[in-house]
């Protein structure tokens, strides 16, 4: 093998521009609704108000990084409760498993932000530059005043959408009306502006120019999904046994030999991924189902049954080519695998809800002072010192009695601002550190024992709500 090709083939493939045509149909309608709802959720959520009293923010959904709190309507998550977020992430993962094994890349096709924003950007493109044919002409045309005007208008609208996207993001991290006013008067923190600009830039580039390349080259999900799909997974497919051999009907020789596909290219022209679904399942297909709408429209017009392109599983292809009926949709969706995913998903969900309801609004941790382990007092009593951290998870200042329970006789002293007290005040939404002394008199067993188990308690003076934590008392033994 010593041949030397004149020019080595390039390993880089240039992007083929894609000009998706407008399409109407039930899936397109569904996608418009999903786009509207998801975008509305994203843009409007930070503006929902939720009254939590005078000490806490009144924004329904707020990630308070400085205060280390996450507010979600009536739920408030502290940093030590981050397992809720971990649980939600696991649920999101299992949810994706479930939907992928049942419906393939349904997330990609309908709700992925990349798809939704690309869809929105294409909509803007169509409004300004016209539908597919007009856009192809404009693409091929030389630069002219009209082309510049259309392009610049489109980019400006895209940029405004992109700015709004980045802008909405920062409202999740600060009080939205205040931040909006600050942003307008250029007095918001620098990080707010830089975040908006970075997200605006990514939205602009991803939605306007990179589009399907993000899915093909950047996103790991399409590759992972292949491992979760099986023969029963519903994906968008072409009934080649019905459509082939394809051809223009009317004038062709032996037109009666032809299949239902009239090779009108409608399915290819509407595809935002730029593929031909008739080539079978492909990595690039995000199962957006627009080719189904496009083909159904054509089939209707030429008087053939709909569903030449349809949601199908590989097992249906086998069945139908052998003349059998496809399995009903519910049998594809309800399988041991999907039931298992649903069960796991629900189990974690139920566990999280349970954890949410049983969690206390007081939290107590204790750190015994171990240097020294105990101090002997002049009357022979033995004293241990503990650092208590009391979290008040409510919106009001609370007074707590500090108490202990033990099988042995022990006394407790709480220090508050240098004086001995029996209760402490923990400000709303804060953690208080209190020093507590536990004392065993010389005649009591705990003074001479090696260790004595005890439990420290805090009890709300008004409501009697309490929280306890176990620790030990070190004696002289």
């Amino acid at each position, binding site marked *: 093998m010593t041949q030397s090709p004149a*020019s080595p083939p390039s390993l880089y493939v240039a992007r083929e521009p894609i000009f998706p045509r407008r399409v109407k149909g039930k899936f397109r309608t569904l996608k418009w609704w999903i786009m509207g709802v998801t975008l509305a959720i994203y843009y409007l959520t930070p503006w929902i108000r939720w009254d939590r009293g005078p000490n806490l923010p009144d924004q329904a959904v707020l990630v308070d990084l400085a205060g280390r709190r996450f507010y979600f309507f009536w739920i408030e998550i502290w940093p030590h409760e981050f397992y809720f977020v971990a649980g939600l992430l696991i649920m999101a993962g299992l949810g994706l498993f479930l939907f992928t094994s049942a419906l393939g890349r349904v997330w990609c096709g309908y709700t992925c932000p990349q798809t939704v924003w690309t869809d929105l950007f294409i909509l803007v493109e169509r409004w300004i530059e016209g539908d597919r044919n007009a856009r192809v002409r404009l693409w091929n045309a030389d630069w002219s005043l009209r082309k510049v005007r259309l392009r610049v208008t489109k980019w400006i609208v895209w940029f405004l959408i992109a700015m709004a996207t980045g802008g909405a993001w920062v409202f999740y991290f600060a009080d939205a009306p205040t931040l909006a006013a600050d942003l307008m008067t250029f007095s918001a923190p620098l990080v707010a502006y830089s975040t908006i600009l970075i997200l605006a830039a990514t939205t602009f580039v991803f939605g306007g120019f990179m589009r399907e390349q993000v899915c093909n080259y950047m996103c790991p999900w399409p590759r992972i999904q292949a491992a979760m799909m099986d023969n029963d997974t519903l994906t968008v497919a072409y009934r080649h046994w019905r459509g082939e051999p394809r051809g223009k009907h009317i004038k062709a020789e032996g037109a009666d030999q032809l299949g239902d596909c009239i090779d009108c290219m409608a399915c290819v022209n509407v595809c935002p991924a730029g593929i031909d679904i008739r080539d079978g399942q492909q990595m690039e297909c995000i199962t957006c189902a627009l080719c189904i709408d496009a083909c159904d429209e054509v089939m209707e017009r030429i008087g053939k049954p709909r569903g030449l392109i349809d949601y199908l599983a590989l097992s249906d292809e086998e069945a139908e080519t052998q003349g059998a009926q496809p399995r009903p949709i519910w049998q594809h969706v309800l399988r041991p695998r999907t039931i298992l995913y649903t069960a796991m998903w629900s189990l974690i969900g139920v566990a999280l809800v349970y954890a949410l309801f049983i969690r206390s609004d007081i939290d107590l941790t204790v750190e015994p002072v171990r240097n020294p382990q105990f101090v002997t*007092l002049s009357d022979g009593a033995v004293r241990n*010192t503990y650092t208590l951290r009391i979290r008040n998870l409510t919106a009001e200042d609370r007074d707590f009695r500090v108490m202990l329970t033990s099988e042995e006789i022990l006394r407790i002293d709480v220090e508050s601002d240098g004086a001995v007290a029996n209760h402490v005040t923990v400000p709303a939404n804060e953690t208080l550190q209190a020093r507590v002394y536990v004392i065993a008199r010389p005649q009591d067993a705990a003074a001479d024992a090696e260790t004595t188990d005890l439990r420290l308690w805090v009890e709300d003076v008004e409501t009697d709500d309490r929280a306890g934590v176990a620790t030990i008392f070190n004696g002289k033994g």
Partner: protein
Amino acid sequence: MADKQEIDDVTGTDTTGHEWDGIKELNNPLPRWWLWTFYGTVVWGLAYTIAYPAWPLINSATTGLLGYSTRAEVAERIAEVDAQNAELTERLASADLATLAPDDPAHRFGVAGGASVFLAHCSQCHGSGAAGVQAAGYPNLLDDAWLWGGTLEDIEYTVRHGIRNETDPDARWSEMPAFGDIMSDEEIGQTVEYVLSLSGQDHDAAMAEQGMVWFQEQCSACHGDNGEGIRELGAPTLNDAIWLYGGDRETLIETVTYSRFGVMPAWGQRLDEEEIKAVTLYLHQLGGGE
């Protein structure tokens, strides 16, 4: 070794001739930009060692053309923090500790700063947890027994002037005689039995009876009639559960025979005014302050 170049079909580049299980390594030299970046880093590295302190010499290192020093930077930062705390420091230095409220910012500043002062200057003897070392006679500062007093005023005086040192004429001073020169071993033994009885420990009652006579004669002037101690003299209380050097028979005999002479430096000569007050506040709130 391949004597002629082997060209790979797909990429058109030659191979290095290395082969593993049929997989051959393409000969892809480093890209030019990478190479120039590499040369750039070499130049940068050399320039850096000239501009900044770098080459080790026998006693120090080259100082660099820019005269940069990490120590100077640290000093600058410390000065910055000191400037930020200047107001609190001033307030603490001029405060009367007895009347400084616990929720006063200067009080909190003092307790926090005092912990650092304690770890830097006091923990060598008194321990990082302030529990002292009984075997060496370094007192425990957490308990409720104070040789020279446990009020803020007393603690501040002790810290400032120290105990039994030669450097500060105002140091707290007292000295227990070595009774081995004065009394016989038997008499000392009897006295110790009596001292043991004062704090309710096991003792020989007959010896203690005789020991009480010696105690009243030799010891009570400083330690009090019932061993309650006298603070003005720094004479320890003998009828409680706390012992500076140890309360068992052997240690007491040693103490009485040879005496003790614990020394503490006068920190007023070494610490700033605000440091003395800070460590005083810190010590007072450890659990034993009066």
